[in-house]
C-alpha cells in the first residue's frame, strides 16, 4: 500500500499482488509519501482464479471495474486517479494541462495538445539536468500566482525513448519508478534525478508546441505573447474551475501572472535541439 500527497489530496494505492503494487507505484512515484489519512483510495486486486483477465480496479464513487486484464484495469485507475485529482484541486488551486521546467531559475511553461511533444521535450530537459514541474499536469495557485510541480510520472512512447538511451536503460532495467504499460513507458522524474522538482514560481516563458510547426529548422521563434497567454488560460483542467465565476477569477489571475511572459513557438522535429535552443534563450 502506498500513500502519496498531491496537495490538497492524499491518494492511496493498494494491492496485495506484487506486480500490481509495482504498477500502482509507478504513476505517482515522484510524489511525496505520506502517512496522512487518504482522501482518495484506489486498489487493484487479482481474482482467486488467477486468470490473465482476472483483475478488478476500485476507485472512489465508481463501480468496480473488471474482471479485466491488468492493462485495462491499470488504464481505468490511471484515468480515475487523474480525473479525481483534477476535480479536487481545492479552493485555491487548479491544474493546467501543461509541462514545465526550470532553466537556471527561469521557469518555462510548455503548452500543446496531447501528442504535441510536451513529454518528450520535458524528458530531454530532465536529461540535461533541469528540474521540472511535470510533463502533462502542473498546479497553479491563484492566491499567490505560482506554478508548482506535480509528482506524476512522465509518459513516453518507444519512439521518444529511442533518442534517450539513459531513460531507455532505466526502463529496460525496470528501475523503481519506471513502467512499461500497453506501449507507453511511465518514467518517474525521481527515477532520473533525486532532486527533480522545480521550485514553485512564475513563468519566464511560454513555449507553444504545435505539430504544424514541425517542418523547418529546429529551434524557437518568438510569437504573440497575447495569443500564448490566452492558450494557457484555455488549459485549465477539470471541474476544479468550479463554475463560471471561479473560472473567470482563475483566468484573470493567469493573465495577470503572464503579463511579462515571453512567448515562443518550438519548430522542427528534434526535441533535443529545441531543448538546446530553450537553454540558450533562458541564458540571455
Amino acid at each position, binding site marked *: 500500500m502506498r500513500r502519496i500527497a498531491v496537495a490538497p489530496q492524499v491518494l492511496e494505492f493498494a494491492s496485495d499482488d506484487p506486480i500490481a503494487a509495482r504498477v500502482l507505484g509507478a504513476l505517482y512515484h515522484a510524489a511525496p509519501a505520506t502517512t496522512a489519512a487518504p482522501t482518495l483510495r484506489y486498489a487493484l486486486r487479482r481474482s482467486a482464479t488467477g486468470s490473465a483477465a482476472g483483475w478488478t480496479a476500485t476507485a472512489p464513487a465508481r463501480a468496480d471495474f473488471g474482471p479485466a486484464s491488468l492493462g485495462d484495469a491499470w488504464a481505468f485507475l490511471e484515468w480515475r486517479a487523474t480525473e479525481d485529482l483534477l476535480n479536487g484541486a481545492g479552493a485555491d488551486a487548479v491544474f493546467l494541462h501543461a509541462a514545465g521546467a526550470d532553466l537556471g531559475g527561469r521557469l518555462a511553461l510548455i503548452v500543446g495538445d496531447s501528442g504535441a511533444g510536451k513529454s518528450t521535450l520535458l524528458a530531454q530537459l530532465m536529461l540535461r539536468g533541469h528540474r521540472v514541474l511535470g510533463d502533462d499536469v502542473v498546479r497553479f495557485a491563484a492566491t499567490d500566482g505560482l506554478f508548482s510541480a506535480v509528482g506524476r510520472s512522465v509518459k513516453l512512447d518507444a519512439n521518444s525513448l529511442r533518442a534517450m538511451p539513459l531513460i531507455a536503460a532505466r526502463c529496460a532495467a525496470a528501475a523503481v519508478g519506471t513502467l512499461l504499460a500497453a506501449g507507453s513507458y511511465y518514467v518517474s522524474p525521481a527515477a532520473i534525478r533525486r532532486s527533480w522538482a522545480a521550485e514553485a514560481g512564475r513563468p519566464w516563458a511560454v513555449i507553444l508546441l504545435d505539430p504544424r510547426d514541425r517542418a523547418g529548422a529546429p529551434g524557437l521563434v518568438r510569437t*504573440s*505573447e*497575447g*495569443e*500564448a*497567454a*490566452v492558450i494557457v*488560460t484555455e488549459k485549465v483542467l477539470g471541474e476544479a474551475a468550479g463554475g*463560471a465565476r471561479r*473560472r*473567470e477569477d482563475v*483566468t*484573470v489571475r493567469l*493573465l*495577470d501572472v*503572464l*503579463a*511579462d*511572459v*515571453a*512567448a515562443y513557438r518550438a519548430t522542427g522535429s528534434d526535441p533535443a535541439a529545441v531543448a538546446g535552443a530553450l537553454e540558450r534563450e533562458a541564458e540571455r
Partner: protein
Amino acid sequence: MTTAGVLSRPVARPDLLLRRIGSEWVLYDAARAKAHVLNLTAAVIWTYCDGTFDRAAIADAILREVPGLDATRIRDDIDDVLRRFADEGLLG
C-alpha cells in the same frame, strides 16, 4: 441597436477586462469564456469606447496623443477595429 448605431458613439461592455500581456493586450469576455488579443492601436481605441467619443473624436484624440500618425490611416484603423469590436459583441 444596429451596427451603425453601436459604432456612432461606441460603448465598451463594462464587464470586459483588459490586461496587458507583453507588448499586446488581452480583452477577456468572461460571459462568453473568450479572450481577444488586441494590438496597441486596438487597445487605445478601446479606452475611448465610453459613449462620449464618436469615430472622428476618437481619431482626433489619438492624433493629439501620438503626433505624427497618418490621419487617414488612423481613421481607417478605427473603422476596422470598431467593426471588429461590434462583430465580436464587445460593445454595449
